[in-house]
């Protein structure tokens, strides 16, 4: 089941660059929340702070608190524990090129020492079904490399890989921006189904996409969160002038 995320006074830096400034928001459980804004506004940094991937960059720094289902991820947990609970899908599909489709999905479990083969088989099948890829790959699971799939299939493979470790939250950083329209719509359908089981945070440049898949939307600009509200309100009657300018295409 998904859990809610409570972000309080979150600040982040890359070197001296203050990329996130005083972010406060509540991301509801089992909903899809979209983050929009122009390039470089801090959306990606923000999602990377939710699974502590931000700090894999040695010059990065974070202050403030992020609570996932009550757990303060910066004070009370190690990064590897957080990342098992918070899955992530990246902008460009990044399957492990030397691994089979099966091993790609099982990677998160296998590399963390899980070796019950029977259970793995079940988890791989379920994850691939949940990511709507099973029918396309079930005959080549152990024969083909993850890199041999098409871009859209690779991205769904990456989603399956993230789901296999049974996370509570799924972060998606522009998951469809490198894909064609058909693959994009498959990913969007997927988000729609997955939010019953997971809390989803999706960064997107595509405002129609945000409107289609998300109940809540946050607008980021220059490292600050300008507005956070129901998607309907953001796109029809935003309270901030800057949000309105952005969604009507006046900049960004």
């Amino acid at each position, binding site marked *: 089941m998904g859990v809610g995320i409570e972000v309080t006074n979150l600040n982040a830096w890359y070197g001296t660059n203050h990329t996130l400034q005083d972010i406060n928001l509540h991301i509801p459980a089992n909903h899809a929340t979209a983050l929009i804004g122009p390039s470089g506004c801090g959306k990606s940094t923000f999602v990377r702070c939710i*699974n502590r*991937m931000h700090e*894999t960059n040695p010059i990065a720094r974070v202050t403030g608190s992020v609570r996932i289902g009550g757990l303060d991820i910066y004070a009370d947990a190690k990064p*590897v*524990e*957080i*990342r*098992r*609970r918070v*899955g*992530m899908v*990246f902008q*460009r599909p*990044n*399957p*492990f*090129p*030397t*691994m*089979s489709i099966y091993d790609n999905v099982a*990677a*998160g479990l296998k*590399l*963390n020492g899980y070796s019950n083969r029977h259970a793995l088989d079940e988890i791989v099948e379920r994850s691939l079904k949940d990511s709507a890829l099973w029918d396309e790959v079930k005959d*080549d699971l152990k*024969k*083909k*490399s993850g*890199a*041999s*799939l098409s871009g859209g299939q690779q991205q769904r493979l*990456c989603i399956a*890989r*993230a789901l296999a*470790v049974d996370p509570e939250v799924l972060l998606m950083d522009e998951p469809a921006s490198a894909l064609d329209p058909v693959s994009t719509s498959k990913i969007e359908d997927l988000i729609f189904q997955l939010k019953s089981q997971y809390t989803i945070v999706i960064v997107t440049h595509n405002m129609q996409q945000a409107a289609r898949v998300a109940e809540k939307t946050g607008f980021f600009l220059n490292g600050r969160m300008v507005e956070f509200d129901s998607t309907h309100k953001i796109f029809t009657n935003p309270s901030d002038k800057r949000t309105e300018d952005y969604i009507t295409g006046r900049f960004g």
Partner: protein
Amino acid sequence: MKAGENNLRSKIRALTDNGVTALAILATALVIAPLVAIFGYLIFKGATSLNLAFFTQIPKPVGVAGGGMANAILGSAILLAVASVLGVPIGIGGGIYLAEFGRGTKLANAVRFTADVLNGVPSIVMGLAAYSLIVLPQGHFSALSGGVALGIMMIPTVCRTTEEMLMMVPHAVREAALALGVPNWRSVLSITVRTASPGIITGCMLAFARVAGETAPLIFTALGNAFWSSSLNQPIAALPLQIWIYAQSPYDDWHRLAWAGALVLIVLIVVAVSLVRYVTSRGVLKGAS
């Protein structure tokens, strides 16, 4: 633009294209020519002396017909095995450190610089080093000291290729592993190194092929041996050493054997490298990059 001018331009373009292609073909020919020439000459000079005895017998005294280099082939295999056991793990380990854990640190820069210097050290100096480190304290020449000298020579090549191959693994692949909650060390070993493994194996093969033909480091260490020996603690024969000794001798018999030995050495290196390539490529999946 007029039609005539256009026509002229496209002709010039086609001419340039052909010219550059011809240059590329010429360069390729120049690269391959020495290899083909050497190999052809070796076959011409050495193939006639190759027979079963060459692979089954040990050297005979001067004037006695026949004899072979079976002991030198075995000796080279043992020396290279010792060298690989020493050079491959240390080299790969060093390369992993340089690329993954020490990136940007002073120690890593020092290690990288040392490896580059080590790569440029003349091979006879490696032999002297192994001589003073192992032969002198032990009081006798040995296969072990020869293998160590060759192994040390392998380290810098293996280390630097490993580092370069690991650096080529896309950042996205590392991130994918970390984002799954895989600890960094595990991600490095199971994901990054595995992704780079074809290149790392190529590096190891290069180092292997290079030291397989080395003579100088063995002169003060393995020494050579006219008899069967497989003991690490005794002097041992090696193909390059045997070729060197035979080639320097004044006897035509031995000259012919030296040519045959050189041919066998090259063929064995090619066979060993191809075998490793075949074995390691069997597990590669369809479409893997």
